[in-house]
C-alpha cells in the first residue's frame, strides 16, 4: 500500500496551509475528504439533484435509488442482517439521542440505571443526563484502570438488577483504548441488558461487524469516516426499531394521518422524518467505497504502525507525558507537557502547520478523573505518514524552546 498515492486522493494536501505543508493530526475530530466523495456531491447537485422518496419523476426516482443504495452499502459494510436496520441521522450525536430518547421513553423509570463509562464523549453522556433529569434515573460510570482502559471487570462491577441499558464507546477518543465490546455485550445479554456502542472512533479505523459484536445499537459519524458533514448512521436491531416509538415527527415517517391520530411508517422510514440529508447520504456511499478500496485491514495495519512509531517517538521526548497505555489501542495519542498548557502547544504547533487538538475533547469526566483540565491530542488517518510524526515531534521541540524547557 502506497500512502503517498492514497494521500494524493485528498485534495486538501495539494496546497500549502499558511505556507506550510499541512500535517493533519486531527482526524479523530474530523477526517479529510477524498476527491471521490467531494466529486460525488458535486455531480449529484449539478446533474442529478432531487429530493428523495416523495415525487415520482425521473430525478426523484434516481435520487431515491441512490439514497437507498447507500443504505445497502452500509448494511453490507457493517454486516447488519437487514438493510432496514440502518437509519440515517445527522450524526452520531443524534443517533445516540435517538436511542436515549426513545428507549428512555419506553423503558426507563425512576430508579433505573444507565451504565456508561468514564471514557465517554459528552455525546454519550448528556442524552442520558436528560433522562436523569426527566425521569430520575441514575447514571453509573464504569471506571478506568491505570492504563486508561475499561475492562470487562469494570463493567461487571457496576451492573446491578436496576441496570436497564449499557452505553459505551468502542474506542476512546482520548486514551485510544479499544473496549472488549463482544465480551461486554455477551455479559449484558446474559442479564437481558441491551448495549449501545458509540462507534464514532472505531468505524473509520477498525473492521466492525454487527453480527459478530451482536450489540443492540451502534452509532457512527460520517464525517469521521472520510465522509460529508451532516450525516451519521444508527444501526439498531430490527426488533428495537419495531418496538421503540419514533423520535422526530414529520413528513416521510408516517403511515396514515388523521385529525384524531397518526400511524407511523414502516422501517426505516419511521425514524427518518423530514427531508433527509440526501446529498450527504449519497456521497457517503463513496466514503465507504473509498475505505473498501484501500481495505480496512490495510488501514488498521497502517495506523497501528503509525501509532507505534508515534508512541515510540514521543516517549523518547522526555517532556512528553502520554495519557493512558491501553493494550488494545487505536490511533489516538493524547499527551501533556509539564509547564506548557495544551492550548499553547496547539497554537504554537499550528504555526508550523501541524494541526492537533487541545482541550478536553468532549470528555470532561475523564479529564476530571485524570486531574487535568485539558490535554493535547494527535490522531491519525489513512493519509498520515511517519514524516508527519517527525514533524510533530520537531514542532514540540520548538514549543519547548519557546517556553524555555529543556
Amino acid at each position: 500500500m502506497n500512502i503517498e498515492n492514497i494521500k494524493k486522493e485528498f485534495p486538501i494536501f495539494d496546497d500549502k496551509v499558511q505556507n506550510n505543508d499541512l500535517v493533519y493530526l486531527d482526524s479523530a475530530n474530523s477526517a479529510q475528504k477524498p476527491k471521490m466523495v467531494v466529486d460525488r456531491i458535486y455531480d449529484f447537485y449539478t446533474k442529478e439533484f432531487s429530493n428523495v422518496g416523495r415525487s415520482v419523476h425521473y430525478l426523484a426516482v434516481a435520487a431515491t435509488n441512490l439514497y437507498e443504495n447507500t443504505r445497502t452499502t452500509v448494511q453490507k459494510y457493517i454486516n447488519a442482517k437487514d438493510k432496514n436496520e440502518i437509519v440515517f441521522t445527522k450524526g452520531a450525536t443524534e443517533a445516540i439521542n435517538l436511542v436515549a430518547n426513545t428507549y428512555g421513553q419506553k423503558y426507563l423509570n425512576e430508579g433505573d440505571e444507565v451504565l456508561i463509562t468514564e471514557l465517554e464523549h459528552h455525546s454519550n453522556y448528556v442524552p442520558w443526563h436528560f433522562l436523569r433529569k426527566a425521569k430520575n434515573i441514575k447514571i453509573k460510570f464504569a471506571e478506568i484502570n491505570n492504563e486508561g482502559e475499561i475492562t470487562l471487570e469494570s463493567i461487571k462491577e457496576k451492573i446491578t438488577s436496576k441496570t436497564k441499558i449499557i452505553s459505551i464507546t468502542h474506542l476512546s477518543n482520548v486514551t485510544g483504548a479499544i473496549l472488549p465490546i463482544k465480551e461486554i455485550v455477551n455479559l449484558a445479554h446474559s442479564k437481558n441488558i441491551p448495549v449501545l456502542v458509540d462507534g464514532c472512533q472505531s468505524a473509520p479505523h477498525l473492521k466492525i461487524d454487527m453480527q459478530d459484536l451482536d450489540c443492540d445499537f451502534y452509532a457512527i459519524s460520517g464525517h469521521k469516516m472520510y465522509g460529508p458533514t451532516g450525516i451519521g448512521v444508527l444501526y439498531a436491531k430490527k426488533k428495537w426499531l419495531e418496538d421503540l416509538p419514533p423520535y422526530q415527527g414529520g413528513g416521510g415517517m408516517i403511515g396514515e394521518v388523521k385529525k384524531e391520530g397518526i400511524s407511523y411508517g414502516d422501517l426505516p422510514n419511521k425514524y427518518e422524518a423530514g427531508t433527509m440529508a440526501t446529498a450527504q447520504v449519497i456521497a457517503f456511499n463513496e466514503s465507504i467505497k473509498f475505505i473498501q478500496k484501500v481495505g480496512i485491514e490495510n488501514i488498521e495495519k497502517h495506523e497501528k504502525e503509525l501509532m507505534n512509531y508515534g508512541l515510540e517517538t514521543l516517549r523518547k521526548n522526555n517532556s512528553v507525558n502520554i495519557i493512558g497505555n491501553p493494550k488494545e489501542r487505536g490511533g489516538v495519542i493524547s499527551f501533556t507537557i509539564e509547564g506548557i498548557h495544551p492550548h499553547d502547544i496547539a497554537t504554537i504547533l499550528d504555526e508550523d502547520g501541524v494541526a492537533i487538538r487541545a482541550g478536553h475533547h468532549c470528555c470532561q469526566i475523564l479529564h476530571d478523573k485524570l486531574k487535568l483540565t485539558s490535554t493535547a491530542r494527535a490522531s491519525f488517518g489513512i493519509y498520515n505518514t511517519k514524516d508527519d510524526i517527525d514533524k510533530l515531534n520537531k514542532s514540540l521541540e520548538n514549543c519547548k524552546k519557546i517556553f524555555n524547557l529543556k
Partner: protein
Amino acid sequence: MNLKELYQEIILDHGKNPRNLGKFDNYNKDAKGHNPLCGDDVHVYLRLNENKKVDDITFEGKGCAISMASASIMTEMVRGKEEIEVKEIITDFLKMIKEKDELNNNILKEDEKTKLMSLSGVKQYPMRVKCATLSWHTLSSALENSQEVVKTEK
C-alpha cells in the same frame, strides 16, 4: 414496452374498467391494503372452497390506473386457481415486478402471462411499483388471514 404503450394498452383498459370490482356476499377471506405514498386503498375479498380453490374473488378500492389495473388483472388470474397455485403466482409476479422482466410461471397460460407482463414496465418507476404490488400483497395477506392492514413496503 415503454410506459406510454403500457398506459395505452392493458392498463388503461383495466384501469378505467376494472373487472371484479365490488364486494360479494359469501366471501370467507379478505384483507385491506393501503399505500401511504399516494393514499390509495384496496380491499380484497375471496372465497376458498373446500378444495382450497378460489371460487370467487373481487376487490374494492380507488387508486391510480396502475393499481386498479393490477388489481383487476390479478382477480382474473387467480380465479379458479388452487391456493397453492395462487401463492406461486403472487411470488412470481412480485419477482417479475421487482427483479426481472420475464414472468417465470408454469401455471398461467401464455396469453395470461403476456397480460401480466404488461405490468413489468413499472419497474422503471420504483415509486409506482408500490401501486402495482399493493393488491397482490393484500391478496397474500387475505390468504394468511392477517388482520393487519397491508402497507406497501419501502
